[in-house]
């Protein structure tokens, strides 16, 4: 029995070598990691999005794949189209339900995904987030390129990409609009700046962050949807109903790797709240939920009062 298994795997190795040697041209497959975040959809804030006390009612906001991370995924998919043998791995940090965006990525052409999830990461600011992500990235096999969205719509900070690059000692290119080529260990990128465009060249491995002006992500692929719709993390599999059949033994690609803090090497002091130099002192709700327009006349005192109000609630000024 044991013997047969060895033979089987030998055959597999043999087959895969044959397969690889079939195309005579040498393929420039890249190992690409896409950093993605599941975010509340702050663009579609409804009436019940804010609680009476002025805090955000996260439960009332749909959780989505951060839009610019989808632009990032598209750039990775284009590299995969162009350079056969490229693999795309999605890495996300978040609660268990963030596995949704890994599946979303698989349906669009990513090859596999890692969910980094642990209470130890709760309360992380961008620096602690970047540290945790960089520890996970260090544990992954040889990486050629890390692609992330420029920023997430819940924080709009645009910090995690550059900070991950710094933590890994890798060069960075932000505001990328298009990867022009990625050959001979170099990547050429067009960046979108406020007042123009810039083409830059960066050696690999490196980190790029992708701007919203980059092409939109392709839609789900029906075949991939069928293939990956049962992709689950171990926690999800354990929580499934009794009649659930675990398919991962036969189809290992259906396993979404789940890492806790114990699966990566970290210094706990740099994680979560204690690893976050910035703290939130105060939160104010600034959205006016005016049901009816407040009627004003152009009288001086009314115009003065309006400006004072707008300045006081940080709408202007």
């Amino acid at each position, binding site marked *: 029995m044991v013997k047969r298994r060895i033979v089987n795997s030998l055959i597999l190795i043999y087959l895969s070598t044959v397969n690889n040697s079939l195309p005579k041209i040498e393929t420039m497959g890249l190992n690409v990691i896409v950093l993605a975040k599941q975010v509340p959809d*702050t*663009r579609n*804030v409804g009436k019940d*999005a804010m609680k009476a006390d*002025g805090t955000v009612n996260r439960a009332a906001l749909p959780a989505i794949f951060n839009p610019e991370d989808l632009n990032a995924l598209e750039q990775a998919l284009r590299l995969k189209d162009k350079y056969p043998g490229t693999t795309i791995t999605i890495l996300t940090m978040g609660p268990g339900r963030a596995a949704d965006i890994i599946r979303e990525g698989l349906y669009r052409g990513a090859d596999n995904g890692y969910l980094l999830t642990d209470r130890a990461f709760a309360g992380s600011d*961008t*620096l602690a987030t*970047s540290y945790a992500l960089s520890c996970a990235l260090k544990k992954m096999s040889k990486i050629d390129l890390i692609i992330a969205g420029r920023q997430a719509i*819940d924080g*709009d*900070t*645009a*910090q995690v990409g*550059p*900070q991950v*690059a710094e*933590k890994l000692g890798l*060069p*960075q290119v*932000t505001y990328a609009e298009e990867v022009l080529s990625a050959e001979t260990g170099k990547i050429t990128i067009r*960046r979108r*700046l*406020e*007042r*123009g*465009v*810039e*083409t*830059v*060249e*960066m*050696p690999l491995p490196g980190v790029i962050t992708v701007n919203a002006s980059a092409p939109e992500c392709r839609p789900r692929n029906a075949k991939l949807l069928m293939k990956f719709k049962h992709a689950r993390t171990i926690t999800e599999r354990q929580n499934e109903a009794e009649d659930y059949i675990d398919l991962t033994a036969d189809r290992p690609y259906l396993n979404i790797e789940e890492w806790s803090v114990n699966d990566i090497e970290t210094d706990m002091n740099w994680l979560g709240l204690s690893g976050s130099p*910035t*703290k*939130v*002192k*105060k*939160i*104010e709700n*600034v*959205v*006016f939920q*005016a049901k009816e*327009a407040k*009627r*004003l*006349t*152009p009288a*001086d005192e009314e*115009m*003065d009062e*309006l*400006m*004072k109000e707008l*300045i006081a*609630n*940080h*709408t*202007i*000024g």
Partner: protein
Amino acid sequence: MNNVFVICEVDEGKIADVSLELMTKGRSLANQLKCKLEALVLGHNLKGIEKELYPYGADVVHIGDDERLDPYTTLPHTSVIVDLFKKEEPQIALLGASTFGRDLGPRVSSALQSGLTADCTSLEIGPHEDKKAGKTYEDLLYQIRPAFGGNIVATIINPDCRPQMATVREGVMKKEIYDATYKGKVSKIEVDKILKPEDLVVNVIERHMEKSKVNIKNSSIIVSGGYGVGSKENFNMLYELAEVLGAEVGASRAAVDAGYAEHERQIGQTGVTVRPKLYIACGISGQIQHTAGMEESSMIIAINNDPNAPINKIADYAITGDVGEVVPKLIKFYKQNTK
């Protein structure tokens, strides 16, 4: 030591406006903290650049002049700044929330483990009490910024790590000469001793800069005009209001068709869709074609002669009156209240 620093951006040989705005803010913070204001300029051919900064109250201008610092790339700038900050230990470091500052800031803050607050709309000095740890802090930088798509405003502090770093968007702070005869001193940075070959691995192959373009899509405040504005000349008022608020000017299709504004400013179904924090609709009736492109604005102020204009249905404030009367008043009272 422990001073307020502004990391300046150089734009076509001159200090960028956003950096001068931060110098003005930095000067008032430094006065409040009774410390010095220091500017940091990196680039090439910077001779005499300190003279642009002295009138804004710069006590020291650190200059790193080297051809490898122009055009800007992340790594050499980071190395020079990190090196300087390790020596100078600033308590506060500010930079513009431009593509420059938002590329450089996080890299520097990560290297210094200092934390950074992006896109602040207000900076204040205040105390903080950490009841859990039983610690009190004096004179922290309150870094105030909208978050969550502009639905909340958060005050961020950085109690223990230095520098307290923040980026601020152009137009948010006011640029004001502090003292036209103010004299600081120059401190030259020996760039050569700092840069290493690995800092120079990213190369800019090509650069194509355009003159500033209309950017209504990313503007957090929009002053928009419709047919009711009446003429192209009257639109100048809207530009004036936009200028003082740090806003962009938009227009309805009717105003564009009438030749009051350029096509690229058109907001609505056939133009751009915008979701700014504040939308001031001037002389816009509020046809669905227009409101479709702006109804998701966080706050809408409508100025219209007609009290029954449809725009008032989605407005938070409806001012019934003439645009020509209301807009100059908004400018006047804004200026009065932000002095």
